[in-house]
């Protein structure tokens, strides 16, 4: 039919079709023209960069932490009941690793809060949320033995920390909290007796948070520094109602309350303590203190004291010896004014000086205070200063989203470099459920070397890091004695989490327990310097920090591929130095302090258990 049409008509039809085609094309183009994509808050906008963001490096360690809480027989739950939006309810709690029965396997104390602050004494005494003591069964499991061991602690406990207060060879325990301090003295057969009042520790009522054991006067007996948070006033909680949109009432805002003084208990060597903070000028009266750590930051042989304060500036007290402390916070440039919660110490970059890492509140980043002593030019009078290099080394900006708490340097992949763990959990109430706090995920950072700094390895560090908790305290220990470090985390109003380190185990390691004779029994403040594979590493016993928590007193070294330790030097707080050479790796040593200051010789006593890494 088309063929029968005259040519002219066919041409007209073609032309008309062309015109129609054009018009259709215009119509299609017009209909295809979508309005521009609506702007959405948080969308990726062209032209916004993140210079400081770091990708996972290709050589990240293939080590993951597995949540083995349940299989290890731990059923810890923090807090019983519903929050009443009062500050003490939200701040706890922590955990402390300590081998209280001396069997070579670390046991675990976990502090707990019984429940809401409005709870009656009767209710509190019935609360299931009591402090727990987990005895290590040496097979990867634990048994909760607190009551059997004589520790029935039901209150608003914040922290626990182990030390041998009477130098009788076993670890005693001090528990802090909203209330008063408790001392559980170890009678050596697996039971404890509460002697806080007898030891003159239990005196002052207050909001006692962090605690740090250290032999500040090097008299061979451990002394105790306790941080006071705020002078909490329950009246404020009752007055917090408002007709306005109060998301976070005054009763959970630490600024509302005046700072509480800190306490320093001098060990009088007779089973009692004397509180000397005021006399020694270390009360930090304005600081709302949460954590403290004893560490010899200026290298003068005396443990200095660094105090992390919430919504008030941190304080560094230099220990000049003879009981003289000097506040050098500003001069040393570590009077960090952000809201600090946890503090970690360690020589992360191997320059021979002890650095500080501090976790902060939201939108404040972490601080990585690099000790500048090693950079001080020779000739100049070495003055202790620090420099916050968090952004440069990858641990600053990443924490803007975090409220950080428990933290420590630890070599989780045994490569000879100190990595970082940081627990997070908000203090803000959930908008949809104000009785609960906003949960967050924690972070793991791998140390990629002194030049590169840290890389976040949470994504490949195990499922735990993908989950959200209201994290607070955290501490590490090699609880299964396999040569790598495991972690316990306490979550406010949530479960405790035991994280077992499961790595390929190709790297070598060494663990060292100290037994002081002239120095305090567990070697608090002893400095270890290990050289292996051409790399020197330092540890200071008991100088780990964290938040309301204490890691094991065993010094742990990752050795990388070095199977032999060239030298291990120990500077005892009592003054002696011991030097051991050509030690084999992958075992745990117990080293006893030599009776008198010596210039050599090794007193090496390898003890079981020491197994190769899995």
């Amino acid at each position, binding site marked *: 039919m088309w063929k029968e049409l005259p040519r*002219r008509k066919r*041409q*007209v039809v073609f*032309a*008309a079709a*062309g*015109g129609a085609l*054009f018009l259709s094309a215009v119509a299609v183009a*017009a209909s295809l023209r979508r*309005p*521009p*994509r*609506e*702007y*959405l*808050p*948080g*969308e990726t*906008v062209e*032209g*916004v*960069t*993140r210079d400081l963001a770091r990708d996972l490096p290709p050589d990240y360690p293939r080590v993951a932490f597995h949540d083995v809480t349940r299989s290890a027989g731990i059923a810890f739950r923090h807090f019983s009941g519903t929050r009443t939006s009062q500050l003490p309810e939200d701040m706890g709690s922590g955990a402390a690793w300590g081998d209280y029965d001396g069997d070579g396997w670390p046991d675990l104390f976990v502090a707990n809060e019984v429940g809401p602050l409005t709870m009656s004494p009767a209710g509190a005494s019935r609360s299931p949320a009591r402090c727990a003591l987990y005895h290590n069964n040496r097979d990867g499991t634990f048994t909760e033995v607190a009551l059997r061991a004589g520790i029935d602690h039901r209150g608003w406990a914040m922290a626990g920390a182990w030390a041998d207060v009477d130098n009788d060879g076993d670890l005693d325990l001090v528990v802090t909290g909203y209330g008063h301090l408790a001392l559980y003295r170890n009678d050596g057969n697996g039971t404890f007796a509460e002697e806080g009042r007898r030891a003159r520790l239990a005196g002052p009522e207050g909001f006692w948070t962090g605690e740090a054991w250290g032999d500040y006067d090097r008299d061979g007996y451990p002394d105790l520094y306790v941080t006071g948070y705020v002078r909490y006033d329950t009246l*404020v909680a009752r*007055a*917090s109602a*408002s*007709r*306005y*949109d*109060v*998301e*976070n009432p005054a009763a959970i*805002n630490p*600024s*509302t309350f005046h700072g509480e003084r800190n306490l320093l208990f001098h060990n009088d060597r007779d089973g009692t303590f004397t509180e000397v903070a005021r006399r020694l000028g270390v009360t930090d009266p*304005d600081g709302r203190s949460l954590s403290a750590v004893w560490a010899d930051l200026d290298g003068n042989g005396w443990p200095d004291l660094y105090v992390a304060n919430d*919504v*008030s*500036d941190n304080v560094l007290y230099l220990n000049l010896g003879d009981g003289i402390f000097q506040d050098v*916070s*500003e*001069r040393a*440039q*570590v*009077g960090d*004014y952000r809201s600090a919660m946890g503090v970690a110490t360690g020589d992360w970059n191997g320059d021979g000086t002890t650095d500080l890492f501090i976790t902060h509140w*939201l*939108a404040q*980043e972490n601080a990585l205070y690099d000790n500048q002593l090693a950079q001080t030019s020779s000739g100049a009078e070495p003055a202790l*200063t620090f*420099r*916050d*290099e*968090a*952004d440069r080394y990858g641990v600053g*900006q990443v924490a*803007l989203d975090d409220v950080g708490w428990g933290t420590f340097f630890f070599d989780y992949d045994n490569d000879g470099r100190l990595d970082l763990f940081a627990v997070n959990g908000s203090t*803000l109430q959930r*908008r949809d459920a104000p009785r609960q706090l906003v949960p967050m995920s924690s972070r793991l950072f791998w140390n990629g070397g002194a030049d590169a700094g840290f890389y976040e390895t949470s994504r490949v560090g195990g499922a735990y890091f993908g989950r959200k908790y209201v994290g607070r305290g955290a501490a590490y220990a090699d609880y299964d004695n396999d040569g790598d470090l495991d972690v316990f985390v306490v979550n406010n109003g949530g479960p405790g989490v035991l994280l077992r380190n499961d790595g390929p185990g190709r790297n070598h390691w060494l663990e060292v327990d100290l037994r002081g004779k002239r120095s305090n029994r567990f070697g608090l403040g002893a400095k270890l310097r290990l050289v292996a594979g051409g790399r020197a590493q330092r540890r200071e016993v008991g100088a780990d920090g964290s938040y309301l928590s204490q890691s094991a007193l065993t010094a742990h070294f990752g050795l990388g591929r070095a199977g032999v330790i060239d030298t291990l030097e120990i500077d005892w707080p009592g003054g002696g130095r011991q030097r051991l050479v050509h030690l084999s790796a992958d075992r745990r040593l117990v080293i006893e302090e030599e009776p008198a200051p010596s210039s050599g010789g090794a007193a090496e006593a390898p003890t079981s258990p020491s197994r190769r890494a899995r």
Partner: protein
Amino acid sequence: MSSGLPESLQDPPRAPPVMRTSSDAHPRVREWQSRQVALVAGLLLFESLSGLSIYLLPFSVTNQVQVLLHTAVGLAFLAPYLHYQIRHWRLYRATRMTHVKLTGYFSMVATTVALLSGLVLSYQAVFWTRISHVWDGVHVVATFGVVAAVLPHLLIVVVRNLRARHLEAIGPILTAQRRFGTRSAAVAGVAFVVLGAAVLAYRPVRLVDRLPSDYHYAYGGGAPFAPSLARTSSGGAIDPRALGGSQSCGTAGCHVEITKEWEVSAHRYAAKDPSFRAVQRVMGEQNGPETTRYCGGCHDPISLFAGAKDLSQDALTNPTGLDEGVSCIACHGIQETDIKGNAAYVIAQPKRYLFELDADSTFRPVRDFLIRAYPRQHVTSLEHRRFKSPEFCAACHKQFIDKEINNVGWVQLQNQYDNWRKSRWNHPGDPRKTVECRECHMPLESSDDPASGDELDYNRTADDGKHRSHRFLGGNQFIPVQLRLAGGAEQARLTEKWLRGEIRIPEIEEKWRPGPAVPIELSAPRTVAPGEPVHLGVMVLNNKPGHDFPTGPLDIIQSWLEVVVTDEGGRRVFTSGITDARHFIEPGAFIFKAEPVDRYGKLIDRHNLWEMVGVRYRRSLFPGFSDRAEFTFAAPARSSTLHVSVRLQYRKFNQFLLNELFGETEDVTAPITTLSSAEQGIRVAARGGRE
């Protein structure tokens, strides 16, 4: 039918007599030979080519001149085209419908629409402040229509004639056809020659994008503006004229309102703020003039990129930079920002329109015409999605100080951005719950501005007749008046309303709790016994601010509770936080502020942040947080009633700093704004009988 030509080449059967009389030649020959036809075709060729070039080729001087010439030629084309078109139509209307005739009709329609829409666009570009997108689209489509219709219309005939060239009778037609081609090409060629001449004749303002020859590269040649993190896309200097001239955005009826708003805003006086200048001067003297580049990135970008923050410049500023501070282009020219803040941005000079930088030129209206008629460059270079994002604001509203400045290292300072980001106002992906920077600080204003309307925001449309205010109301109710800016008093008045939470922002009203920005609530006993201690509790709540309250340089800003308790005789029984005759706040007041310290623990009290290493006192309220102050006094023995009045006071500058900057004798003091207040009576009565 005796011409000997095939039917398809034959004449119209009844050719109009008018054509017959004009010449003896064959009608087709006459049509091809007509000068008018060649003129019309030549002009149409130029219009089509220049139109396509304007549409398809990038912005350039040539394209701008083409816009002008395209418009002029289009106007000149109108009369001859209409005359030709009517005649041509009448000549062929009676012939049988062929594909040639049909494409002829298509051409007529397309050309007419193109002409008409071109006229409308020209009118809008001359008399309005922007052209309509619809007419612009019609014009572009019509242009393509012209090309799509006229080309086949002509080519069919030309090809058919060429195919018939073996026929003797076609000879004259082919000759005429060639002549038509030559003539129309010549017409278009003349137009293009004029275009070329105009392009060559244009003398743009020569910008001097060069740092002074004696400029001190204190931090290495690769970072001329360090320690500021601000960079230019070229890596080098930018002539102040390229970033300044903000006033010209408000001329010719364009962004008049926006310019007026900006003129009194803190962005505008960021550099001329006398307190900023005084602090900068001291910093230059104590710390080295190069270090003031740190301030320049956000306070005085024009001077920074001109190289004025240098040893050789006593004033550490450039006149344009001083006057305009954060000018229009200083913000709208930013191409990239980094979330670390502290002026971490990259700025680029936008390409300019003809005569745009030459404010005195008599050809100035040409600029206005071009921006409106050919707005693509103006819009794409100065308007961007990123301007909505809080990350853009973060470039300057997040500050730290680093070792280049304080020799100490990283110290965090004000950070509105991350404050906001982690606050209750931020719900990524949910605009209905989120309140971003611009939604508060740039509320919508009714407007005739050519930039009004926005279809990207969930609660706006492309023609909502509103623009975002460029007043950037914030916390400074002092400097606009102090500087005697035109409209400064009004800005201060609005800022006070803003601080009190009295400015209504209808478009976000459902997202927040109305009322004071920072309300206070007083709790006091109703009755007390004489001599008994009276406890007052005052709760302060950060209700509306999207960031800490207060925010900004907290070493300068003060907000405090003023408590006055009077007895029935009006005598003061108790006070806290009242100011003395020298404008100082009574010691011991409950106060939001910060006290930074230097490495010797000495107070940083002159905003000498270059010496700051820490902060010994800091109090502010995170969004949604509340704080509580307590006051205690003894109830007087002889009173019967007490009246408690509490006010939350705010001032931008503490008195000590003002005395330092302006001298104590000048008696300069910052105005105090009462943000919220509460009152209550207390009865004083002996407890005896009743209890």
